[in-house]
């Protein structure tokens, strides 16, 4: 067992794509709670206490704003809360629906929190290079250029400061002008440099046939297990959704599908799908602390 961060990019992307789609589609309260809280706990595992701060400063306001905007602008519903001065009634149903859709959006944001921590740009490049190789090349080259240019910017601005034309001296217009001069110097250098890079790429055989890609990722047994578990759970959830187990209605009145043994089974599969990375991470940590007898301590996987 290895942590989700070290898994094969395909495993990562299957999980995140399915999780984002499920998190957006299923507004059934139970399913939404499952996806929201598992995303919340996984980001808690990855980031620690910082998640509480972003929850109260960003996610809760999104949910509240969504509930308020929807409550004030939509006029359906059967449970009136109060009447506005212009005679329109504010009902409970649009407020709840606004809150639920805000929670769904927050859930997707939390899933992307986890994405940003577990999937680095190498993995994005790996996945892109299979289908869009030239775009992936653009991405990876720019990723290398951006820090290089930032370093060059520092060099140029030091030199400009020596001439008394830094971005920290003078009034606002002076500063903007000096900043733009730095950008201009950088542009000339960057474009000339790119031509040189292209020539050296060409002389090393860029664009010739039968050239393979370097990749550091191995599809291990853990990946196979995780991927098959997630696939089975996804299929069960999709069948359940097709059979109407995720049915919920907020407009104009609240209606929800009945809880049956089958719906509990679907929810169980939904839980398993969402907590797979968390369990993999926790189990990996446990294995590091309590290694199997006879296992080589430094062994990966």
């Amino acid at each position, binding site marked *: 067992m290895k942590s989700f961060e070290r898994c094969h990019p395909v495993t990562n992307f299957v999980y995140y794509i399915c999780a984002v789609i499920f998190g957006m*589609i299923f507004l059934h309260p139970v399913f939404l709670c499952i996806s929201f809280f598992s995303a919340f706990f996984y980001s808690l595992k990855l980031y620690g206490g910082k998640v509480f701060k972003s929850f109260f400063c960003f996610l809760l306001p999104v949910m509240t704003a969504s509930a308020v905007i929807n409550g004030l602008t939509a006029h359906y519903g059967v449970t009136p809360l109060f009447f506005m001065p212009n005679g329109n009634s504010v009902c409970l149903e649009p407020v709840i629906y*606004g809150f639920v859709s805000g929670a769904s*959006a927050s859930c997707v944001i939390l899933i992307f929190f986890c994405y940003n921590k577990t999937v680095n740009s190498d993995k994005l490049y790996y996945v892109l290079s299979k289908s869009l190789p030239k775009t992936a090349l653009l991405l990876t080259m720019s*990723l290398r250029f951006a820090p290089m240019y930032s370093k060059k910017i520092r060099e140029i601005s030091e030199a400009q400061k020596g001439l008394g034309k830094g*971005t920290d001296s003078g009034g606002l217009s002076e500063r903007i002008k000096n900043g733009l001069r*730095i950008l201009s110097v950088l542009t000339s250098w960057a474009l000339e440099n790119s031509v040189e890079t292209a020539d050296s790429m060409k002389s090393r055989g860029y664009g010739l046939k039968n050239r393979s890609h370097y990749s550091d990722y191995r599809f291990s047994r853990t990946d196979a297990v995780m991927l098959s578990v997630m696939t089975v759970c996804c299929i069960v959830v999709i069948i359940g959704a097709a059979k109407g187990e995720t049915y919920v209605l907020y407009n104009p009145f609240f209606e929800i599908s009945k809880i049956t043994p089958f719906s509990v089974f679907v929810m169980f599969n939904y839980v398993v799908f969402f907590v797979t990375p968390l369990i993999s991470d926790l189990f990996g940590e446990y294995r590091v602390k309590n290694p199997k007898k006879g296992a080589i301590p430094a062994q990966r996987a």
Partner: protein
Amino acid sequence: MRKESENPSEKSTEGIAENAVGRTAEKKAGKSNIINIIILCVLSPIVIITGFFLFKGKNYYIICAALTVISMLPFFISFEKKKNASRETVAIAAVIALAVASRAVFYMLPEIKPIAAVVITAAVSFGYEVGFLAGSMSMLLSNVIFGQGIWTPFQMLGLGAVGLIFGLLFSSSKYRYNRWILGISGGVVTFIVYGLIVDFNSVLMLSADLSLASVVSVYIYGAPLNLVFGVTTAVCLILFGKPMIEKTERLKTKYGIFEKG
């Protein structure tokens, strides 16, 4: 110095090679156009119709996100199919990295983001396809650094559309050296096009039932930020657009890249 003397011969051999691949490239380009038309005419109605029947008029968010991605695919596919010289590919990468790094120049003035100005100048001198690629890829890349989200496709489409518009309008126009026309139109287009597309993500996030009142209220709430971005773009283009375009034009003639015809 040595480099300069080598250049003319290199340019001519590259030109011959490009002519040789030109005919096959044309056929390929035709094929990719057909693929693109199929994508736009078949895939997007399929997404809309299945989305409509599956979600019964709810869940606009996922349908819109899918449509945003589909609308960008043709540009990337035609870039993949096109036989670019390696110099052009690297130059596009350099423009993307410049757009991202340009934020680091103004670390003393954090509100100023010249990213749209860099994309516009690249679009004006290198054409609309490069404009779209530079805009969308620089957004994707800056989100690799600042954090991806469901807003990524909307931002990519937003800045890509700005690049596309400027490439189409100005790339062979005589007004491209007029700093006032370029700057003011740059500010207006950034404010309207980028603002409308990117704030549509906030609209989808904040208003569950899309009604005119809720959409307008979210747009009004987001307008000041977009105005700052538009004004920044206009100021950058007025001060900096002309010299930057001159630089890239010089590069084009010096190394023979992005030549039309």
